[in-house]
């Protein structure tokens, strides 16, 4: 890779005087073109709706619901994507203009500006993903704080009921669709190609597009607070017919936001599958793959198979809302439970989409910081596959009390309980990996241990919920809120933090502050347990979830939970401060600060623009700690300053 291939890009950045510069600014890919193309496409969408209504003689001509949907939620975002440049290469190809397959002008980051354009470098996209998802994590967390303000005392009226219902609905939607799922995709985007010994993902332009769909989805969900009638307020599950026919305009912001996030998810998963199957370095057989790659392989299978189902459920729900179809409207022959079956056929596998990549991160972190090979490597990989298969056979355990066919409950209970077995195998294997090891408690390891203990509690409460008689009592109560936060916060979020701290040196080339990292861990760990453990008790005593008000007997516990949650919220500030100051001024990171064997640590921090100057030859397992003379791969010595060399003219 030479500087010559980068020339067009350099040229593009060079400010040239006069008309040419102004023309490029207006017509070249970027936020200015994205702005006016958003407006242009939005106007076309507006024209289409009004035109068709005028042609058909429908009254009223200006119906806000279809106009908002077509112009603001579909056409406008497409214009934004076109403007930012996500389709430039494909458009040129489609209309027969000359394209240059070897044109790497959209690759790599030299200044911070390069993070704000369509970039095809998986490392840049990984960072774009992470920063974006952390933004939505903070937004979603802020909404959770507002929820806790309302719930601090019974009889509070800080928010009217519709706004309150909107707060927790948007909170959950952001945390699931804009934080946990894409944060894992971001980490994997950065790490997986490196672990495979590949120069990039299989489809770099698709990769860039899948990132730029995300902010669209997130802004759509957040901005639903601004539309008349308020945000969607039917929970992140959006059950019909409440969400499909009894909600204000905001509901379609959820329906459509999920489509954009889901499309992003599917594109990334396809990309991972092709990358993992076809771009492994020589010698890197499936049984030599790091477990993080296994985890993302299985997750991507889940995403590709399951996500179209939620897309379908949201389309039908939206059609009921906008076009007055009756998929889920019982007054006209619709079937409300149909929505739940389709929705959970995605959304239960989605629980594993939010869990398996974290399992992968845990395997890396625990093995490296215990200085021992992963215990039972093959069973670890096979249990991931078992979870994928079983994960598709348990969806109706969310519906034990939904009024569905009652015979379905026992088989779904059996599969639900059985899925605890492969999950248990993983937990026991991680503990066996630590056994007799040499444990180093750096921040990633602390979060890994926090994950282990919290996920055990979440898993056991999951077994309780799997037993139908217990579920009948505690379903839709705060016990569920406690369980899902132990799994998704104590589980997923802890692993995301572990992953961010673990790969921070590789991503930024600088070390984070270890003391602040540990402080962040302890504040999070303690705040998390004080916030969510008492919710188990609220639930078994019968406090329903998703209520703006509750019986006075729950007052003390709720006040306690609210206070604890504000502490938990504040702990994120420590994390942000650490990340920002360390990225700017942290000590320069060595190539391999953790003495890890996997491939990403065998190149410089941050890695060279095309990752490996020479394709590595994999010769063994990635976890041979303690085996004298063992090697995972043979690499030609990588020049540590590859980035600077490439950038020099």
């Amino acid at each position, binding site marked *: 890779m030479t500087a010559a291939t980068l020339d067009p890009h350099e040229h593009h950045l060079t400010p040239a005087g006069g008309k040419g510069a102004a023309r490029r600014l207006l017509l070249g890919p970027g936020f200015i073109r994205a702005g006016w193309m958003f407006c242009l496409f939005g106007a076309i969408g507006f024209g289409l709706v009004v035109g068709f209504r005028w042609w058909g003689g429908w009254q009223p001509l200006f119906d806000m619901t279809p106009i908002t949907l077509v112009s603001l939620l579909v056409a406008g975002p497409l214009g934004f994507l076109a403007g930012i440049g996500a389709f430039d290469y494909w458009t040129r190809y489609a209309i027969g203009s000359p394209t240059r397959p070897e044109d790497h002008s959209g690759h790599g980051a030299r200044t911070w500006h390069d993070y704000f354009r369509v970039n095809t470098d998986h490392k840049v996209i990984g960072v774009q993903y992470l920063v974006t998802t952390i933004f939505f994590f903070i937004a979603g967390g802020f909404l959770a704080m507002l929820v806790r303000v309302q719930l601090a005392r019974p009889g509070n009226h800080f928010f009217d009921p519709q706004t309150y219902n909107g707060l927790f609905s948007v909170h959950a939607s952001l945390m699931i669709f804009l934080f946990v799922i894409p944060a894992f995709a971001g980490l994997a985007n950065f790490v997986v190609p490196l672990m495979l010994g590949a120069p990039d993902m299989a489809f770099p332009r698709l990769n860039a597009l899948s990132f730029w769909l995300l902010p669209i989805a997130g802004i759509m969900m957040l901005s639903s607070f601004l539309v008349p009638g308020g945000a969607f307020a039917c929970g992140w599950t959006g059950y019909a017919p409440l969400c499909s026919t009894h909600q204000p305009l905001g509901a379609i912001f959820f329906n459509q936001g999920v489509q954009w996030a889901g499309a992003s998810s599917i594109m990334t998963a396809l990309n991972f599958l092709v990358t993992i199957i076809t771009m492994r370095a020589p010698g890197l057989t499936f049984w030599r793959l790091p477990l993080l790659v296994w985890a993302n392989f299985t997750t991507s299978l889940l995403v590709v198979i399951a996500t179209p189902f939620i897309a379908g459920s949201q389309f039908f729900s939206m059609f009921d809302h906008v076009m007055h179809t009756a998929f889920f409207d019982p007054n006209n022959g619709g079937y409300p439970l149909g929505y739940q079956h389709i929705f959970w056929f995605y959304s239960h596998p989605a629980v594993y989409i939010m869990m398996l990549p974290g399992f992968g991160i845990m395997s890396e972190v625990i093995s490296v910081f215990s200085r021992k090979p992963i215990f039972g490597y093959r069973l670890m990989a096979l249990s991931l596959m078992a979870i994928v298969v079983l994960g598709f056979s348990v969806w109706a355990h969310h519906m034990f009390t939904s009024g569905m066919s009652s015979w379905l409950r026992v088989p779904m209970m059996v599969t639900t309980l059985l899925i605890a077995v492969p999950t248990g195998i993983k937990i026991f294997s991680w*503990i066996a990996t630590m056994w007799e090891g040499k444990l180093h408690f750096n921040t990633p390891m602390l979060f890994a*241990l926090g994950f282990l203990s919290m996920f055990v509690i979440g898993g056991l409460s999951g077994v309780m919920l799997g037993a139908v008689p217990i579920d009948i009592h505690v379903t839709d109560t705060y016990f569920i809120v406690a369980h899902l936060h132990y799994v998704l916060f104590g589980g997923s979020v802890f692993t995301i933090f572990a992953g961010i701290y673990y790969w921070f040196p590789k991503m930024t080339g600088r070390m984070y502050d270890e003391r602040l990292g540990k402080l962040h861990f302890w504040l999070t760990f303690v705040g998390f347990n004080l916030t969510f453990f008492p919710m188990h008790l609220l639930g078994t005593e019968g406090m329903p979830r998703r209520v703006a008000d509750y019986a006075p007997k729950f007052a003390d516990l709720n006040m306690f939970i609210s206070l604890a949650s504000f502490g938990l919220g504040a702990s994120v500030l420590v994390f942000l401060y650490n990340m920002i100051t360390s990225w700017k001024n942290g000590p320069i990171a060595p190539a391999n600060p953790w003495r890890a064997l996997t491939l990403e640590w065998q190149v410089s921090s941050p890695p060279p623009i095309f990752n490996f100057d020479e394709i590595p030859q994999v010769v063994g397992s990635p976890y041979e700690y303690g085996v004298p003379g063992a090697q995972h791969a043979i690499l030609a010595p990588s020049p540590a300053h590859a980035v600077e060399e490439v950038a020099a003219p």
Partner: protein
Amino acid sequence: MRRGSIASLLGIGIVSGGIAAAVALAIPWLPVSASKEAGRIDFVFWFVVTICIVIFAVVAAAILYSVVVFRAAPDDDSDGPPIHGHTGLEIAWTIVPTVLVTAIGIVSAIVLSRDDAIAKNAMNVNVTAQQFEWTFSYPEAHNLTSATLMLPRGRETVLHMQSRDVIHAFFVPEFRENEDIVPGLTTTLNVTPTRDGTYPVICNELCGLGHSTMRSTVTVMEPAAFDKWLKGQSKAVTSPSAVTAGAAVFKNNGCAACHTLTAAKATGKVGPDLDKLPAYAQQAKQPLASFVRTSITDPNAYIQPGYPKNVMPQTFGKAIPKQQLDALVTYLINSSK
């Protein structure tokens, strides 16, 4: 493995299991049990909790022991022993959890089939849920309706539940019973009350802006007291006195859940204040009597400014018999003057 390490592992396991057991026993986790079904469900609850505590103790002991014993010194750069696995151990921790969860599954399935069985002399109650109120009616007592549920102790009751708009759920924590009420379906729930008292009926499925106010109560009483109540109610609704009958209709149809009316000690805030009915009628430029009647049967005909459309159910016109509706209108006019 050294003998000393087994002893200390066991010690940590007993301590952490003991702490978990103490948390389980010292805190009153479950509300009082007021039905036969609740007793069985509580058995499953504690059966599973016991298994969970044992597993938790094992895992906690192994983690804590590792953290303390296998901690590396800061300057120790050596690696641990290269142990890649142990087939026997891996088989064990696949088989043992499988056996445990199978046991949980069997116990649960047995309890489920017992709770689902319906006795021959079961009483039927129809439950109607709508945003944001409950109506209970007794098909075996001339379809008498009530806004609160009254049940005789010791007799199995089958609730036949229907929704008029969105999905709701019937939940009584003391009965450990919970089932969704889905528009277009009739779902059922069996309950055999065993303990006198008044317990909350909670809507447990998000049903819109008034979800957290969609509450009623269930009162379990002596069978004799229950029969007396049924007779008294039938009499009140058909009372020649419009005030007595109207007050009963107001109460039975759950108007108090959303409206304020001083005469009925109602303090709901979701809908307009019924003490101000004459003023509203003036604003709507309609005579009071027809205004009140239309507002019940066709609530969207006039919407008082400051309140949203489509919140009040549009089904009362059909649900309330004419004679009772007349009594309700008279009662509202008299009470708001």
